[in-house]
């Protein structure tokens, strides 16, 4: 069994300040973890992916996430928010070689000027 909990449904930051989007997961197996971003009226786009290599994963647009097995967390961070980062972010867990992904409910990121 696997599950994902995104701890904040909405995060609001000012432009130029750090971003932290929190994700905890549960998995009976060694998981693969993903962050996807969805801009308004668009499909989801992969930000980054963890698959048991380096625990700190760098993604597109300056985002990165750290896999912490002891805390079962995979939080997404960015040092400095940009207006274009305003979107919904989904944390996703999957069992390796399994076709099925489990999505979190999403975190809406608002960036204020």
């Amino acid at each position, binding site marked *: 069994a696997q599950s*994902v909990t995104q701890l904040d*449904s909405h995060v609001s930051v000012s432009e130029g300040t750090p971003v932290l989007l929190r994700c905890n997961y549960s998995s009976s197996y060694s998981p*693969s973890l*993903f962050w*996807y971003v969805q801009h308004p*009226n*668009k*499909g*989801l*786009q*992969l930000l980054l*992916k963890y*698959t048991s290599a380096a625990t700190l994963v760098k993604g597109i647009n300056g985002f990165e996430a750290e896999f912490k097995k002891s805390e079962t967390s995979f939080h997404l961070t960015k040092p400095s928010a940009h207006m274009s980062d305003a979107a919904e972010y*989904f944390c996703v867990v*999957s069992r*390796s*070689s*399994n*076709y*099925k*992904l*489990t*999505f*979190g*409910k*999403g975190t809406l990121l608002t960036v204020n000027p």
Partner: protein
Amino acid sequence: EADIYQTPRYLVIGTGKKITLECSQTMGHDKMYWYQQDPGMELHLIHYSYGVNSTEKGDLSSESTVSRIRTEHFPLTLESARPSHTSQYLCASSEVGDSPLHFGNGTRLTVT
């Protein structure tokens, strides 16, 4: 730039109508998926396919059906639409193994 295309982007229809949501990808991916997305909720898998002539139901029960006659095409059909089918439907594809998904821009369906 999207290599997976969904049409129509928006659809408003009356109850009882038959509809088909189209999804095509140009990447040669064997695996394709349909997800249902409602505001503030996680995405729910309603159908998936391993390849041509292979389709399976997902985690969320759905009255829709799918077909996979060609690798690049994975249409979803509702024989008789109801207001409860109002939602956004996202199509995705991926390569074999644990590859990430490529999503289309979605079809937002409203049944009146």
